[in-house]
């Protein structure tokens, strides 16, 4: 980091928009670890020249919990609780991604109904993830009220989670082979109300408040731009990459969980600046609502779990009356079932981008090696480059628009 501090040559001086000075003193500013604007625990040590950031150094790992190591001891069905705690703003996507990875390894085909329920849950999670990112971006620029309005809608999504699995934040939703329970009539009614009435209304209001608001737009246009080419080199995925103009979306490129059945658009930006990231996420919320409406409309009848005795818990009433079910129940809960050996990579489109699971199984009860490809971890390293030469208030806005989730960053 030391070599770029003093703009001794012309290109550095141009980048920083200041004359070449041999003896400048810089201020060091600690942004974090527990600064409210970082929305998580990670530190940025910024070298400041007056108001302008000259360079930044990141320290991460404050909430590292060694999930990859812990996973090597756990039976497959117990790993969802670890994935919950990665991107905790959209845990159902993490859960489903893990189930699908194991199903790929086992060669299980999930019934259509389970696929559709998963799609609904994943899109709800995406909506809640984007609601947080965009409304907090408003808070970081000084507009608090939008955040309060749309958080009401996020609360409704959490009520649907509760209806589905009993939990709100760390959902542990779904099981290997399907869903743990069917969509209840209450859940369906709540989802219908959300995507047909309350959320479109609230989100339209939010957009009205922000999208062409002069004060807000002036704060975010051309702040922290990144070119598509550079974004690819930095491993960007998800809304941040699409904002830079590259239409890569795992849901379309490698459809999983019956995403090929749905008709939706992939919003793409131009400049990759904060405004584009904001707009891409806004638009994705509308697209997610579209997907959920289609899934509810065409929800297939049938079972909501696969016939996978070795991993999917038998119904409780069978456990008491049926020997076979009792045996499987015991074996699953004790984690005594060996998975086939193999090597699988499965990716899902998480709230922040491509969430990958690289699973190596040696034929034991637990993974031999499990690696999470965490989008936040990978694109956060571009942050010092993106905020070079900007003021501290812009740096906060850039950080907010990248939607770095500390849990996912550190795993």
């Amino acid at each position, binding site marked *: 980091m030391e070599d770029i501090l003093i703009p001794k040559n012309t290109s550095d001086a141009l980048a920083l928009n200041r004359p070449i000075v041999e003896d400048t003193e810089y201020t060091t500013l600690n942004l974090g670890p527990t600064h409210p604007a970082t929305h998580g625990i990670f530190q940025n040590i910024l070298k400041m020249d007056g108001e302008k950031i000259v360079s930044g150094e990141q320290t991460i*790992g404050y909430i590292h919990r060694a999930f990859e190591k812990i996973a090597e001891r756990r039976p497959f069905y117990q790993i969802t609780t670890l994935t919950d705690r990665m991107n905790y703003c959209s845990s159902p996507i993490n859960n489903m991604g893990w189930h699908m990875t194991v199903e790929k390894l086992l060669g299980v085909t999930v019934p259509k109904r389970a696929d559709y329920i998963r799609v609904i849950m994943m899109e709800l999670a995406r909506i809640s993830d984007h609601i947080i990112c965009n409304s907090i971006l408003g808070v970081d620029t000084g507009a608090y009220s939008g955040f309060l309005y749309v958080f009401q809608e996020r609360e409704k999504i959490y009520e649907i989670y509760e209806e589905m699995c009993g939990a709100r934040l760390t959902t542990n939703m779904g099981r290997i082979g399907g869903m743990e329970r069917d969509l209840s009539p209450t859940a369906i009614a709540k989802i219908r109300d959300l995507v047909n009435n309350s959320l479109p209304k609230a989100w339209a209001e939010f957009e009205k408040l922000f999208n062409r608001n002069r004060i807000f737009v002036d704060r975010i246009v051309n702040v922290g731009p990144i070119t598509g080419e550079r974004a*690819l080199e930095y*491993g960007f995925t998800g809304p941040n990459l699409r904002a830079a103009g590259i239409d890569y979306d795992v849901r379309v490129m490698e459809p999983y969980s019956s995403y090929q059945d749905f008709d939706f658009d992939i919003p793409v930006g131009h400049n990759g600046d904060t405004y584009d990231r904001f707009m891409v996420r806004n638009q994705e919320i509308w697209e997610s609502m579209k997907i959920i409406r289609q899934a509810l409309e065409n929800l297939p009848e049938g079972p909501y779990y696969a016939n996978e005795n070795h991993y999917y818990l038998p119904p409780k009433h069978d456990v008491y009356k049926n020997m076979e079910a009792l045996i499987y129940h015991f074996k699953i809960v004790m984690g005594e079932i060996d998975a086939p050996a193999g090597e699988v990579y499965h990716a899902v489109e998480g709230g922040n981008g491509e969430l*990958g699971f690289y699973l190596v199984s040696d034929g034991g009860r637990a993974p031999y090696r499990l690696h999470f*490809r965490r989008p936040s*971890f990978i694109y956060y390293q571009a942050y010092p480059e993106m905020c070079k030469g900007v003021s501290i208030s812009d740096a906060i806005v850039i950080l907010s628009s990248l939607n770095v989730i500390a849990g996912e960053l550190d795993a």
Partner: protein
Amino acid sequence: MTNQQIAEDIVVKFGENTHSFEEPWGLLTLTTNRQNIISLLEYLKQHETFRFNFLTDLTGIHLPDNQGAEFGVIYHLHSLQNNVRIRIKVFLSQDDIHIPTVTSIWPTANWMERETYDFFGILFDGHPNLIRILNIEEMDYFPMRKEYALEDATREDKIDALFGR
């Protein structure tokens, strides 16, 4: 463009330096050595039709029973134009766990390599800043290695009194 075509093209170019071609779940997997990893990755990235321009993932693995090749480095590349993935592995001996860095090809490899170093102790030669990333700097071991086993959930030698039971 099929995996077969890619594999044939790689074999023509790199010959015996690439081996163990597999296709688990349709993902072309091959193994190379550290002398050829940089040229192979550059070749795949700049290839006119393949264009593996995106480094999806870089990670390590420890295989203590694999004599002479205890550590593995695994690269997942993705060709966004063709929507094809490829997995490349390099195995290293524990007496000499050096491998060239790929940060010059993809800047994103910076943190991925730091993470791999942090957990496995694999040394990436030429890396601009090869220090620990998620663990504390004072740590003097590499925790993802298999010799550091987690506590066995089924063990019986625990003294209950020590755990307040």
